């Protein structure tokens, strides 16, 4: 259960006001570091939660589909420019971010990933890549400032980071067709 401890420590650390403020002061770090770290914190805590409530996960997420849909919904929600702004200006939205990313995205992702079939995984890779690509296009080429709390320069930087992410996911997705895993192991 060391993993769960690390997850908990990471989770609490990320929520410390100075850490949260620092992470949120730069748009790219907010979106591409703080938010994913919250998801990772949730993922680290998953085995512990599954041990505590084994029946819940088996009963409500037996084939992994509900969990993965929940993960996608939460992740897409946090990509909307407005939610980033509101996380900074509205306390309740900030708290919702702290709860939703680890427990409604991280936990269901880890629980579902082993359960869903390969075709499901592929759908997720492609969808995520396409969404990130769209976000890249949106943030790079938007003529207007999308977030009131961030400069337009930061918005463009974030766009490029999204493009990088989209390409990375795509490369990972494509490589599995060419690399024979069994040889490596």
């Amino acid at each position, binding site marked *: 259960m060391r993993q769960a401890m690390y997850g908990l420590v990471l989770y609490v650390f990320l929520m410390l006001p100075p850490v949260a403020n620092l992470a949120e002061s730069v748009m790219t770090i907010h979106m591409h570091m703080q938010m994913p770290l919250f998801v990772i914190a949730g993922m680290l805590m998953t085995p512990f939660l599954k041990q505590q409530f084994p029946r819940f996960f088996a009963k*409500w997420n037996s084939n992994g589909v509900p969990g993965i849909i*929940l993960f996608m919904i939460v992740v897409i929600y946090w990509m909307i420019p407005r939610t980033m702004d509101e996380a900074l200006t509205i306390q309740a939205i900030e708290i919702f971010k702290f709860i939703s990313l680890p427990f409604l995205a991280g936990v269901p992702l880890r629980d579902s990933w082993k359960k869903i079939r390969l075709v499901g995984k592929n759908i997720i890779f492609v969808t995520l890549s396409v969404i990130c690509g769209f976000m890249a296009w949106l943030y790079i080429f938007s003529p207007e400032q999308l*977030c009131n709390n961030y400069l337009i320069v930061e918005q463009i930087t974030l766009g490029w980071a999204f493009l990088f992410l989209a390409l990375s996911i795509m490369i990972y997705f494509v490589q599995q067709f060419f690399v024979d895993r069994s040889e490596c192991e």
Partner: protein
Amino acid sequence: MIKNKHNNLAIIIVLLFGVALFYVGTDGFQAYTAETARTTKLIDEKPSFPKVTLEDSQERMYPFSEFEGKYVMLTFIYTSCTDVCLQLEVNLAEVYDQIPEEYIGEDIAFLSISFDPTRDTPEVLDKYRSYFESDGETWRMARIPNQEELDSLLDDFGVIVIPDGEGNFVHNSAFYLVDREGNLADVMDYTKIDEAAEKVTSILDAEATQRISSIPDTETGE
């Protein structure tokens, strides 16, 4: 089978949660940025213009109630701005030109308010005014010397100004229309010049025809 039942139910619950989350989060799939959410809210709430004292490019000091009885087309600017303010004012000048002349000064006034009162003195504003051929009378440029009053106005009208530490500000821009009673009537996209001009003209036209039609009525009544 029972297992699957719960699983399917979970899918439905998750999807419903998603729809609800996005519905609430975007004001019914309307506002995807905080800026659109802000304008929708402003138009709904119609805040009244707070009590502030303006100092214009001719060094005249007066409260905003100076404009009572007229519509006021507002923009928020600072003169050291190198990008969006210039465009904002160029566009405002075009709206000014498109409004029928008989309304200008009578039914509607134009006002550009600076949110950088330390640098935008009346002299600076006077120079800036001349770039856009504003006459300083029917289209005035003014600062609000009292910082507290300025902040209350920016706050009420949802203008977010972020200093970038190098003497510049990042801010959101729009045309604000304040009605004759001093309440915010509309917030318009400053990039859609024709649309804004048409909207303002149609409001003024409608009021003018109303006035004309009401005059014979009173005359026949006499």
